[in-house]
C-alpha cells in the first residue's frame, strides 16, 4: 500500500518535471515601446539610454535600452524593452516607469508611467530629451566701466568682480542652482580656494524675471583681494535646472598688475639737541599690491625739491641730514661718523633702491611688511617743531 502511494507520487513528480522542462524553453515577452523626441536644442535622442523599472519594487531592478538604431528597436528615436526580463517580471495592470537617464552629457527626460496591459505590447507616451540650460553668454569684469575685460585691483582692499551669465532654458525648466569659480588660468577650477589664485561662489544670484520666458540672468560675485596674482583668469560658471542637468561655460579676463605700498605710521624723532644724531626711527612699508616692489625715495621740507629735509619754526634741516637704512637697524647713540657710515642720504630727487618686498600670499595675515630705519642730524640754528615729507614710491622689482 505504501509502495503504491510512493509510486503514484513518483509518477506525478515525473510528469510535472517533464512539463516544466518543456515549458522552460518557451520564451515569453512583453515589450514596452516608445518614442523619444530630440531635445529642443536639436540634440538627437539616439544613443541615449532609456531605463525601465517597476516603481513599487524600485530602481534596482531595472532594464535599459539604447534609443535608436543601436538599440533593440533598430529605429531612430524608438526604444523597446521586454519588461518580462525584470528580475520581478511585469504583470498586467502593474505600473512601469520609464525615463531617459543622464549618461554624462547632461541630457535626460522626465519620468513617465505606463500600465502593463494584456495586449501583445504596450506603447508608452512620448518622452522628450530635456536639454541642459543653454548659456548664451558669460561676461566677467570688475565694477569699473573702463577698461573693459580687465580687472583693476584696489590697493589694500577688495575689488568686486562680477560674472554675468545669460541663460536660455529651452524647456522652460526653472534653474535650480548656479555656482561660479574665478581662478587663475595656470591653476585648475578644482583647486582649493586661495586669495592669490582661486575664488568660489556657490550661491550666485539667479534673476529669472530677466528677459522672456525661459531666459535668466545670473550674477556670480567675487570679492577679489588686492594680492591676487596678475595674469589671465577664468570665470567658470555651472548652472543646473530642476532636472539637475548641468551646463558649464567660461569667460577669460585679465587681472592687471597693482603696484601699491602703504605706511602705517609717521616718523617722529622726538626732541633732539643741536649737533646730535637722533635715535633710530622706523617706518614699516607694506605691500598692498600684487607685484614685488622696490622703493623710490625722496624728500622735501615745505615744497618739493626745496633741498630740505625739514622746515622748522626756526631754520631748516638740509635734505642730506636725513638718512635711511633699508635693511639693518643700528641700535644705540651714534656719532656723526657712524651715522654717515651706516645710513644713506635722502635726496631731493627720487632714487630707486632695492627693497624686494614681495606681495602677500598668506590669506590669514599680511606678512609682507618690511621695516625701514631712519635717523636725522640736527645742525645749529634750528629751533622749534620741524616737519618734512619723505616720499615713498613703489617700483616693480624684477622677479627672481
Amino acid at each position: 500500500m505504501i509502495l503504491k502511494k510512493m509510486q503514484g507520487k513518483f509518477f506525478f513528480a515525473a510528469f510535472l518535471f517533464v512539463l516544466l522542462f518543456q515549458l522552460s524553453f518557451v520564451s515569453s515577452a512583453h515589450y514596452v515601446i516608445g518614442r523619444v523626441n530630440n531635445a529642443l536644442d536639436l540634440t538627437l535622442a539616439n544613443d541615449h539610454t532609456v531605463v525601465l523599472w517597476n516603481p513599487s519594487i524600485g530602481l534596482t531592478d531595472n532594464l535599459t535600452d539604447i534609443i535608436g538604431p543601436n538599440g533593440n528597436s533598430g529605429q531612430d528615436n524608438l526604444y523597446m524593452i521586454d519588461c518580462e526580463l525584470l528580475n520581478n517580471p511585469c504583470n498586467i495592470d502593474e505600473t512601469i516607469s520609464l525615463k531617459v537617464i543622464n549618461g554624462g552629457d547632461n541630457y535626460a527626460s522626465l519620468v513617465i508611467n505606463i500600465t502593463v496591459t494584456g495586449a501583445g505590447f504596450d506603447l508608452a507616451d512620448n518622452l522628450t530629451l530635456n536639454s541642459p540650460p543653454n548659456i548664451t553668454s558669460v561676461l566677467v569684469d570688475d565694477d569699473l566701466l573702463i577698461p573693459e575685460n580687465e580687472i583693476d585691483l584696489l590697493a589694500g582692499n577688495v575689488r568686486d568682480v562680477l560674472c554675468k551669465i545669460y541663460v536660455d532654458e529651452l524647456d522652460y525648466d526653472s534653474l535650480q542652482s548656479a555656482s561660479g569659480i574665478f581662478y587663475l588660468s595656470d591653476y585648475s577650477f578644482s583647486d582649493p580656494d586661495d586669495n592669490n589664485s582661486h575664488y568660489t561662489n556657490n550661491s550666485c544670484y539667479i534673476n529669472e524675471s530677466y528677459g522672456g520666458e525661459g531666459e535668466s540672468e545670473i550674477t556670480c560675485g567675487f570679492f577679489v583681494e588686492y594680492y591676487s596674482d596678475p595674469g589671465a583668469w577664468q570665470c567658470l560658471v555651472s548652472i543646473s535646472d530642476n532636472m539637475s542637468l548641468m551646463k558649464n561655460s567660461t569667460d577669460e579676463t585679465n587681472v592687471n598688475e597693482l603696484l601699491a605700498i602703504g605706511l602705517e605710521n609717521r616718523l617722529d624723532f622726538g626732541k633732539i639737541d643741536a649737533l646730535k644724531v637722533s635715535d633710530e626711527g622706523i617706518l614699516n612699508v607694506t605691500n598692498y599690491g600684487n607685484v614685488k616692489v622696490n622703493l623710490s625715495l625722496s624728500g622735501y621740507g615745505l615744497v618739493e625739491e626745496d633741498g630740505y629735509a625739514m622746515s622748522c619754526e626756526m631754520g631748516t634741516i638740509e635734505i642730506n641730514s636725513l638718512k635711511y637704512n633699508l635693511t639693518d637697524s643700528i641700535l644705540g647713540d651714534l656719532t656723526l661718523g657712524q651715522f654717515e657710515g651706516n645710513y644713506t642720504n635722502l635726496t631731493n630727487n627720487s632714487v630707486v633702491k632695492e627693497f624686494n618686498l614681495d606681495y602677500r600670499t598668506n590669506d590669514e595675515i599680511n606678512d609682507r611688511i618690511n621695516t625701514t630705519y631712519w635717523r636725522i642730524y640736527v645742525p645749529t640754528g634750528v629751533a622749534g617743531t620741524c616737519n618734512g615729507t619723505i616720499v615713498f614710491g613703489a617700483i616693480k622689482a624684477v622677479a627672481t
Partner: protein
Amino acid sequence: MRIFFVLICFLILVLSIFFVKSIDNDSENLLVKGKNYISFSGIDPLYVSDLIKLNPGIEVVSYGEGEDTFGYVNVFGGIGKNFIIRDLQEYEIISKEDTALIFPNDIKENAG
C-alpha cells in the same frame, strides 16, 4: 515487478513529452488571439519582418537564446531585431486575432 515498474515510468515520461509537445503542435499553423508558442519544421528560413508582412495580425514575434530574448514588434512599420525564422527554434507569437499562419510557400502554392 521491478521491470514492470521501470517500463511504466518510461511510458509516463514518453507520454508526458508528447502531451507537452501537443500543446504547441496540435495546431501547428494556427494562431489563437494572444500568446502562441510555436516551433516550425520544414519551413524555408525567412525574415520575421516578411512573416509579419504575410501575417499582419501578428503583433510580436520573439524567442529566447541563452539569457537573451530577441523580439520584433509590428508597430511603426516593424521595430526590433529582424531575425530569421528557422526550423526547430521555439517562438512566442502574439496575435491580435485567431488566424492561420501564412508562409511564402503557401502563396506560391496558391499561385501555382
